[in-house]
């Protein structure tokens, strides 16, 4: 009996010691994290042109200025919205075209870099690295280089976003591919189908809903990206926004109209894509259940 009691005590002491160690580790991690945040904030504050505490009370000055001017000229708002509508369409077109091109390229890359599906199994690591590099490339880098070479306009933005999208979607797609059944491919192979036929008829039907869901999510991200790229000279609503901002005071009603268009578009696409994606995943679970 005493043996048992002492062993229970031992276990308990062990457990408590382990807990203490764990708590201590958690505490150390927390302290390091807080220290990193605080010093990071101080460095960032130090290297910023204006300080955080000085700027804080000025935070609402600019929105207030813009809003008050927009309210003053509220009658011009519908006209302004109409003026900037074509550039909004251009921004959306850039996002849509680049998502489409990026998804197609990403699909190809993902099929080439999934084991069991790759056309050249030895080159799988190569295609994976290619996707990593494409994914790591911020859109702005390619866009700025292309703007220098082919002048401003929507095409540099489209290529830049499509390039990054291909890498990002390629990775997600290849994760989807890994869960796809290989049996249809084997079946198609046994009747002599070529690689492209095996992929198009054996893999794509299995993964299409997931692909579509990811591509939709990407479209949402790409609208934001294409607005930002416009700001550095690649056309669309971002470009108009920069112009409106550079006119400064007195023209803020234009800026307000652009803000509004961009905001409404992003919210609309966001809601729409979440509804569609919900239905896609929902539809699938129903099919599984039935």
């Amino acid at each position, binding site marked *: 009996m005493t043996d048992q009691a002492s062993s229970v005590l031992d276990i308990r002491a062990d457990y408590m010691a382990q807990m203490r160690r764990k708590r201590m580790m958690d505490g150390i991690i927390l302290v390091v994290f807080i220290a990193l945040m605080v010093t990071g904030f101080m460095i960032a504050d130090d290297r910023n042109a204006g300080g955080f505490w000085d700027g804080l009370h000025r935070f609402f000055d600019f929105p207030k200025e813009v809003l008050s001017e927009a309210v003053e000229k509220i009658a011009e708002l519908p006209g302004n919205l109409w003026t900037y509508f074509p550039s909004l369409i251009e921004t959306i077109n850039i996002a849509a075209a680049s998502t489409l091109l990026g998804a197609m390229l990403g699909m190809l890359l993902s099929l080439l870099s999934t084991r069991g599906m790759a056309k050249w199994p030895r080159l799988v690591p190569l295609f994976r690295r290619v996707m990593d*590099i494409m994914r790591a490339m911020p859109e702005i880098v390619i866009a700025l280089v292309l703007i220098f070479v082919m*002048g401003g306009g929507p095409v540099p933005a489209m290529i830049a976003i499509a390039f990054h999208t291909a890498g990002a979607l390629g990775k997600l797609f290849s994760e989807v591919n890994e869960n796809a059944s290989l049996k249809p491919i084997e079946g198609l192979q046994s009747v002599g189908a070529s690689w492209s036929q095996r992929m198009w008829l054996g893999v794509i039907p299995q993964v299409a809903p997931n692909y579509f869901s990811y591509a939709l999510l990407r479209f949402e991200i790409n609208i934001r990206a294409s607005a930002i790229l416009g700001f550095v000279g690649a056309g669309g609503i*971002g470009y108009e926004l920069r112009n409106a*901002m550079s006119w400064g005071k007195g023209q803020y009603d234009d800026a307000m109209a652009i*803000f509004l268009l961009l*905001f409404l578009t992003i*919210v609309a696409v966001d809601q729409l894509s979440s509804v569609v994606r919900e239905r896609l995943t929902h539809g699938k679970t129903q099919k599984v259940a039935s």
Partner: protein
Amino acid sequence: MTITANETDLLKVEADRLFNRKKLMSFGLPAMVLAYLTYIFFAFDIPGLAQRFEVDNARALVADSYSYKTHVTRDNRTGEISAAIEGERKGTYPDGTSPEWVTRGETETVIDLGDGHVVTFGADNFVSYAIPEYGIVTAQPSRAKGVQAVLPTDETPEWINASKNRMTITTEAGRLTITRNRTEVFRYFNGWELFFFTLDSPYSGLSVGEVMSRALGGEHAQIWQDFWTNKMWRHQDVAWAIFETILMAFLGTMGAAMVALPLAFMAAKNFSPFMVVRQVTRRFFDFFRGVDALIWTIVLSRAFGPGPLTGALAILITDTGSFGKMFSEALENVDKKQIEGIQSTGAKPIQRYRFGVIPQITPILLSQILYYLESNTRSATIIGAITGGGIGLMLTQAMITQKDWEEVTYYIVLIILMVMVMDWFSGWLRRKLIAADDSGH
């Protein structure tokens, strides 16, 4: 097993309809994509792209990214000869020195461009260029009479561009430009010039072994100083810029997570009993996300000025919206049983959250946060280019000069490496933390 004829007919009709729909999908969808791309082709004026495409810019960009040129210039008014890498003041050879392929004599300066191409600066502004398999081109530029070029052949080849006031000879070895006031020779080399040390440093032009032996001889501090403060490549500034970019991503992501977590409790159905609070919080999230990072950056830079703090705050605000939405969805999916179990031991609400809820959602939160950390490194580069901070700013600055393409290449390589390292790091941390988390609490 008693399927009547009627039923088979019905099944057949249904199957036919299904097939028709599939057919329509498999032909209709590609057709739609094609139609849209055709529309884009014309809407974006891709046929007109050929005219806008500036081949010279592209060529300069590509050539500059892996090679550099050294200028040897004679001022025809004073007769002074100077040599400078990329023609920049930072790369000028100190007085009295010149590259080893330039031989300075009393009256003559011989510039050897390699492969038998030799340019000679003679007395009284006289210039001659010996081109193999062509002959010797001479010129006697003067302020009154122009360039006065003499070619060995009657016909002017297309790589020589000669007029009264200006002559340019472009060969594969280099380029000679003569005007009334200036004679300039370019020689091209592969590589990035003066990457380690500028010409004013005593270590410039030494081999790796020599620098190493000097470093071991006690000069390492001086060597590091010369490298670190290299005026052409600005290693110190680049390192700071990368640090700033990562700092923006870190502060923004972590700050957003800390702000979003308590708000997410207010937006989750099973933790927030009041519909109004829930709806208001959710609309706030939508608003933060919907006003894009671009607009937040503009608004914030008005208040705080350009710099890394503005970028960090822009990321923080946008991601508070994204995190809030994701966290509240994660909270709505927690298992009630664990909370009840904790409650049955007499735990207070705070303890119930700490031990019943947080352990359930940490893996999800951590993986989302770390995923965003990587993605925000890219965003921070882009925001930096707009708001003026970090490596994004250096990139745009180097691009605006339109000649330092080797620096642009360098920054692009660094950005890609930075993002890939962050990607790897966040993946590593995620595996580490979540694996450790599974082992128990």
